């Protein structure tokens, strides 16, 4: 008996401690709090793991921009920004945990939009966006069919889907060949990472090849792609006019080096958005000289926003970059673009709801009515770095353009202006995919003519 009462005591105390812990944690995210007058912009970061070298620059870009807004411009129309990082390790599991941790806001500051920063987490969270009414923004990755806002009201694959990328690629090649008529009979090889990401351009390139009459040759390689001799031997036999590499991580420098070994000139190889950073070409050394890459956020530290950041953040030692030589790198600039889209959506929503912190539902309105024209981009300093972006209820992609940059062995140089995708041509493909998704999930697409 003595034993049992002792145990009962132990049980009671454990439960008691558990309950206290639970309820105290509960108190962390009560809606009204000391920061109710601020805007919370969570950062789902990855500072450890295989992708960390890219990640640290992205987060630095975002944090520097937030810091600049807070200290120089006084926040977003007077609403200060608070941010907090959560480590996702680029996995779905930790990404979900971070989202759940952040979705209620921070000390009363609400979340206007969420950037999952990583394909696995973005896919895992796609259903929760609608449930929780927090818009999810993926920049240059994520579900292509989510560009159809009628089926995916809370998902925003902004700026560039992989379909648009394929179309912009063909338009760039046509420019180089002297017009779309000259594409006929040309051989364009796509070497792709055999995964969902890599396969995404198969369907649009097939459609484009039927329209323009070029030969579309698709060659896959298995993850991680650290050995590609067989593929490049095959490519050499084909004698292609252009090679489009849809690589990722280690497979990019391997592709560039192997291409050189098989005698394919680097200036005939065009890299994907995710094969367009300094980290992708530096390991390839001299082989990468002349290599071309598509990007929606080109490298460079001469844009207007960089001048402002340099003056107030970099030179004053407030930057989150540990090594400021990365200032203006492709990944740093992608962080800036991430940040400005989130912030501009808040500004847009403030026009309707007043200059106060914006909630997820209001943030969705802000994103759907986002209109970044030349005037606005010149004002906020992003002209040239970010393309014109106009979203709507039906169109959640907006832009659809890339710049082409070339590696000279030391830095990227822009070799084109914005190359636009032929979005009307690809829209029916996207519609078919979104309709299939709607059917599988039993979603009735909303009618955009009745919105606003």
């Amino acid at each position: 008996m003595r034993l049992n009462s002792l145990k009962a005591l132990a049980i009671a105390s454990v439960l008691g401690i558990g309950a206290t812990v639970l309820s105290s944690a509960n108190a962390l995210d009560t809606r009204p709090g000391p920061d109710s007058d601020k805007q919370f912009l969570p950062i789902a970061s990855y500072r450890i793991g295989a992708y960390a070298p890219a990640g640290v620059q992205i987060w630095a870009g975002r944090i520097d921009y937030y810091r600049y807004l807070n200290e120089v411009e006084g926040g977003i129309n007077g609403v200060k920004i608070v941010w907090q990082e959560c480590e996702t390790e680029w996995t779905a599991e930790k990404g979900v945990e971070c989202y759940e941790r952040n979705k209620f806001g921070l000390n009363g500051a609400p979340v206007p939009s969420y950037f999952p920063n990583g394909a696995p987490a973005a896919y895992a969270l796609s259903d929760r966006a609608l449930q929780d009414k927090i818009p999810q923004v993926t920049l240059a990755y994520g579900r292509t069919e989510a560009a159809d806002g009628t089926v995916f009201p809370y998902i925003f694959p902004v700026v560039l889907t992989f379909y648009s990328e394929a179309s912009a690629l063909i338009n760039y090649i046509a420019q180089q060949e002297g017009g779309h008529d000259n594409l006929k009979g040309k051989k364009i090889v796509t070497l792709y990472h055999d995964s969902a990401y890599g396969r995404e351009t198969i369907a649009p390139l097939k459609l484009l090849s039927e329209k323009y009459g070029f030969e579309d040759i698709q060659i896959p390689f298995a993850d991680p792609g650290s050995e590609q001799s067989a593929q490049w031997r095959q490519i050499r036999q084909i004698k292609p006019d252009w090679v489009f590499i849809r690589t990722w991580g280690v497979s990019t420098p391997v592709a560039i080096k192997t291409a050189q070994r098989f005698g394919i000139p680097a200036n005939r190889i065009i890299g994907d958005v995710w094969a367009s950073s300094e980290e992708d070409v530096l390991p390839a050394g001299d082989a990468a000289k002349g290599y071309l890459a598509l990007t929606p956020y080109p490298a460079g530290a001469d844009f207007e926003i960089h001048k402002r950041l340099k003056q107030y953040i970099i030179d004053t030692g407030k930057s989150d970059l540990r090594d400021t030589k990365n200032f203006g790198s492709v990944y740093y600039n992608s962080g800036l673009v991430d940040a400005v889209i989130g912030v501009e959506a808040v500004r847009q929503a403030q026009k309707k709801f007043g200059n106060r912190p914006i909630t997820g539902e209001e943030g969705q309105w802000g994103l759907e009515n986002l209109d970044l024209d030349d005037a606005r981009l010149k004002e906020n300093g992003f002209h040239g770095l970010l393309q014109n972006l106009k979203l709507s209820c039906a169109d959640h992609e907006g832009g659809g353009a890339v710049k082409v940059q070339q590696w000279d062995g030391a830095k990227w140089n822009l070799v084109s202006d914005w190359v636009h995708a032929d979005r009307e041509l690809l829209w029916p493909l996207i519609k078919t995919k979104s309709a299939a998704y709607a059917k599988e999930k039993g979603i009735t697409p909303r009618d955009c003519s009745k919105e606003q």
Partner: protein
Amino acid sequence: MTDTTLTLDRNTSQPILIRERKSGQHWLWLLLAGAYLALPAIGNEYWLNAIVVPFLILSLAGIGLNILTGYAGQTSLGSGGFMAVGAFATYAFLLHLQLTFPVALFLGGVIAALVGFLFGLPSAKIKGFYLMVTSLAAQFFLEWLFLKVPWFYNYSSSATISAPRLDAFGINLSNSLGKYYLVLTVVAVLTWVAVNLVRSQTGRNWMAVRDMDTAAAVAGIRINHSKILAFAISSFYLGVAGALWTFAYLGSAGVQSFGLSRSFQILFIIIIGGLGSISGCFIGAAFISLLPLALDVIAQTLFAGRVDAGLLQNIQKAIFGALIIWFLIKEPDGMARLISNWRSRLSIWPLRF
């Protein structure tokens, strides 16, 4: 829960009975009542969906592997693959036959059991580390299969699957409470089955095979039959865990959620928790899934903003690793044993052994 790895008294001449620890049952009922009533009342969505649900599912996966490794003594690194089988099979039943979720879940588990049966066949001839290599082959083959054949993910471009609906016989389970109760019920029922299974004739056969298969054969136990049965049942548990992981926790997942690192994670759960102990699976899962979160919360509140964020994350990893090593040195039999030692000390407290 009875810890069946206890060494039995050597000097007994009469048949050995495994003691039922009646007093332990208070714990269980209280725990279960707490989980069903108290936790949803005091815990919010974040606690239920992002902490408790993954912890319960990992515990279930741990039980699955523990049946195979801890009780039947067969090593395996294919847990992630079998979880994927369960997830993709459940998805197929949901999508093509429009079954209600619990039925699809059960059938998904059965398919995983069949696949486990197939990949368990080599265990008749191969032992130990060599068997581990064949299970590694299963892991890689299954990962490849679910990426290569688009039928499994309904030709979606993202190669991920997500539940068309989540309901049990008409009750909608897609909200956070519904998911929590679904997971809790499945885990509670399957844990109860597992506890009884390992105490039954089947479980005793497994342990006999584990401890010395020649002796087991001499005693009349069908060794191959036992081993393959362990593979099938273990895979059933893993398959159910995989389906829950996809549909009740993540919401949508691809095969990358069931990679080799998942297999290792589950192996660590049972090694840290305790091989051959059902309660050890829960302790191990808590250690693996909750401790990093606790470390993160502590680090964020104490050091955020003052220490470089990347450094802070790496320090947490290092502390976590050091804790694993410390616990395994302190008690190589796992934390379940550590806790039972504490219990027996507490029961004669303040006297000492």
